[in-house]
């Protein structure tokens, strides 16, 4: 049976974080109620029965032409709390284009859409937990959280590991971005080291010559001592 010890509290953001204005009317006021981990929580979806398309992990090849912007590679490993790679983990990403605009009907930022950039991708990790995307570097964009508020460039990540309790949605940031210290979302995480782990690192080993810079972003999902606990039904 997989064990899911509680995460150190300082390593995760609280629900209510006043600098993030939207949290004020959406964070629960009542404390969470602790419940035991039963089969309902220890099992989880094997999301991704649908076949993954050839260009699903290459956001630069999903349209007729190449998108505008700086092509980048984003690669890393999905690990459990024991540092072991999580195989067959579904990794989904979505992001703004190079100009900082999302392909979403309610994104009103006055920046151009790119007809050659959809901005979403997905991939399953390999047997060692590795994943890799080709995309373009997203732009920063303004939001109305506070006066002159700008989100640092980021890529949204959604992951499923083994068991529902490993479910994670997060954001990957880029190194040396001056907007990061000003951002209420990443700074909702109390622990500085935990914030730092959301910032990808430039990696020459991921970088491809004459092609694209590479960034490394490893993700740790909840769960340890993962062993099979239930026989499949045939």
């Amino acid at each position, binding site marked *: 049976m997989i064990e899911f010890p509680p995460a150190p509290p300082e390593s995760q953001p609280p629900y209510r974080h006043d600098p993030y204005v*939207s949290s004020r009317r959406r964070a629960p006021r009542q404390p969470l109620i602790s419940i035991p981990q039963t089969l309902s929580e220890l099992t989880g979806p094997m999301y991704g029965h649908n076949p993954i398309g050839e260009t699903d992990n290459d956001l630069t090849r999903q349209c007729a032409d190449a998108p505008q912007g700086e092509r980048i590679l984003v690669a890393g490993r999905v690990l459990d709390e024991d540092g072991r790679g999580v195989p067959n983990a579904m990794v989904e990403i979505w992001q703004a284009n190079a100009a900082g605009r999302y392909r979403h009907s309610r994104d009103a930022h006055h920046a151009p859409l790119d007809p050659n950039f959809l901005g979403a991708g997905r991939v399953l990790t390999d047997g060692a937990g590795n994943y890799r995307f080709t995309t373009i570097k997203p732009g920063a964009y303004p939001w109305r959280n506070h006066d002159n508020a700008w989100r640092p460039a980021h890529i949204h990540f959604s992951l499923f590991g083994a068991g529902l309790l490993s479910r994670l949605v997060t954001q990957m940031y880029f190194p040396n971005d001056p907007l990061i210290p000003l951002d209420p979302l990443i700074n909702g995480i109390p622990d500085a080291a935990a914030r730092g782990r959301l910032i990808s690192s430039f990696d020459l080993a991921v970088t491809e010559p004459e092609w694209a810079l590479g960034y490394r972003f490893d993700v740790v999902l909840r769960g340890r001592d993962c062993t099979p606990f239930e026989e499949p039904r045939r």
Partner: protein
Amino acid sequence: MRHIPTASQTVGPFFNFGLTTNAQLGKVAGPEVAGDRIRLSFRVIDGDGAPAPGDVMIEIWQADGGGHYAHPLDEGSFHGFGRLETDLDGCCTFETIRPGRVPGPDGRWQAPHITALVFARGLLKHLHTRVYFAGDPANDDDPVLSLVPAERNGTLLARQVEADAAAWSFDIVLQGDGETVFFAV
């Protein structure tokens, strides 16, 4: 050495072109799946009492009618997982079956329930709750419901919609009066 799990961040308002493009994920059980067919409608309300339009994603995870959670190597067509975004009224509806009872702690059996995860703009990490079925006698000795203060139990009960026995509704109140019970697991 223990590795610390990566911190959560909000799904933000603009996730739908990345996460909820596949409306088939609202059809958890097709006609070939055995079981008591239901339509489970969620409505999400924020602290202003307003529906949360289009910027909430709900994922559900449930056992089949026999109380069995899908395994990745199962050959059946029931996967037990659904995912939808809320519409402009803060609602979304899953077509599924009523789950069977699954084992709980200490050899006790749990009442039929569906786990729901709530992702939204404004939530730096997702919320975890359960949907039980009002009127099910098994609710009375469910090992998880029994941990919830009696006056808040009702927030975890889906209600049958009048005039349609297959339709159930469940409000997720994020904050304030009638706030839904959310779990730490």
